[in-house]
């Protein structure tokens, strides 16, 4: 048998869309910053400290929490963060 010359692509053949980054915030004063806890141990320790620092810089902080770290954040939660916040910080942990 001669060597095969055509192969079928086993991949998802995905072509990711390129999107521009959201504009960076010039400063934190009066901005609403979301803090997303992914529900891993001690993530709250890190986020508590961030909340304190952001408060000192004049930002308003909103806290959010994923139901479990093992799954991506539910659409509703992402939507809520996007509508209520100017920026978001997602905390890993362990």
């Amino acid at each position: 048998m001669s060597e095969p010359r055509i192969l079928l692509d086993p991949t998802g053949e995905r072509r990711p869309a390129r999107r521009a980054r959201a504009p960076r915030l010039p400063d934190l004063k009066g901005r609403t910053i979301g803090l997303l806890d992914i529900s891993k141990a001690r993530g709250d320790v890190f986020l508590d400290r961030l909340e304190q620092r952001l408060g000192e810089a004049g930002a308003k902080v909103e806290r959010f929490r994923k139901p479990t770290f093992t799954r991506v954040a539910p659409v509703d939660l992402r939507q809520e963060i996007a509508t209520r916040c100017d920026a978001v910080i997602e905390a890993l942990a362990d």
Partner: protein
Amino acid sequence: MRGLPDGILAFVKRDCPTCTLVAPVLAELAARGVPLTVYTQDDPDFPPGVSARVDDRALERSWRLGIEAVPTLVRVESGKELERIVGWVREEWEAFTGQPGLGRGLPAYRPGCGSRSVEPGVAEQLAVRFGAARLRARRIELAEQEDAWESAWERGWSDGLPVVPPTPGRVLAMLEGTRRAPDEVVGVIPPDLVECSVEKVAINAVLAGCKPEYLPVVLAAVEAACRDAFCMHGLLATTWFSGPMIVVNGPVRRAIGMNAGVNALGQGNRANATIGRALQLVIRNVGGGKPGGVDRATLGQPGKYTFCFAEDEEGSPWEPLSVERGFAPGVSTVTLFAAGGVQGILDQLSRTPESLAASFAACLRTVTHPKFPVATDAFLVVSPEHARVFREAGWSKARLRQELAGRLLLDGKEIVRGAGGIAEGFPESFAGAQLPKFRAGGLQIVHAGGRAGLFSAIIPGWPASGPLGSDPVSVEVRA
């Protein structure tokens, strides 16, 4: 290719003695005005005396109609096949054509010969020539000097071991293993959340080295991996060791020659080895889940190349896993589990079920960490020599599980931080509690292995077991 002409279609080849024998009958039918079209596979001048002759040396019509032997008569009405007969049986031909007195002087019966379209080597070529159009995957043409094996590796399609180049011929042959349409969606594969068709699964099954008859098992495994309860995305992304393990139950195990006996969890059986690998390759290639990318395992484990075995149901003292999980006996299933590496249990002296259960419990306590309750599920694979102890004592699986649960209540004082001189552990507030090692339904028990060896195995799960992480998922294997 145009549609089928109405009337009677005859498929013949001169090389076939039965076709030569019935050539005068075909001429007679044409002469009597029967609407007959003859497709001739080797000689366009055969049979003589028939004007409506079609040259089918390219075998396209024969292939499309799935002709297996010649002569074959096919009745077509409004472009659709109604019925067919094969070979020469005078009475059948007379009834089929509505013409009495056919082939006087010929023997009443002669079997046909094989159709040229099913000759070895030819069938595969025809499938590629005429069947490849139904495939949707991107076709990649290799340069003349490009090596197919190396090229598959360089394109990132491999887990590190050689893969079988997925040529259209091999993929079409693989698709023969299922009745499901190539474009049917099997599931949405994490992490890229790409819809995965039966065809894409088949391509990856080719890469993995599967035979077509394994494909239904691979499809069921992919389906199970995509269920939300299995949490494949998180399982892939975790820093922990786990990957998907497949346990196969039911008649399909024997039908495709799976191993549930000697070295059941090890290497050497093609079905066990390639089915598990095919699932991993689907996640890698279709879902885009690769080590160092979304797969963040600190160490991983060798079962992430492939981890698939069959339960030894015939030799088991207990009901199969599939039946325990709600499927009828005789139904083939896959059960997926978020598995870490295999941990052996040695007990060569226990002759009573109580003693052996105590051994199992002592070893099971170490899953993840001896001080960790509830978090991690496990599979206990009981080997035949250990199972014999329970069979002879009349212990059901439920009895064994109950006994293990009783011995696996962890004392809070022993699991809190600092206990045993070990910093790891639970907060001090748990000191007064008693906690089960496994959550309800968190310990599965199956039977497999060779007949010699007083060893069993623990396959620990993922510390994120249960609703917040991964639950075992069972799916029926469909043809």
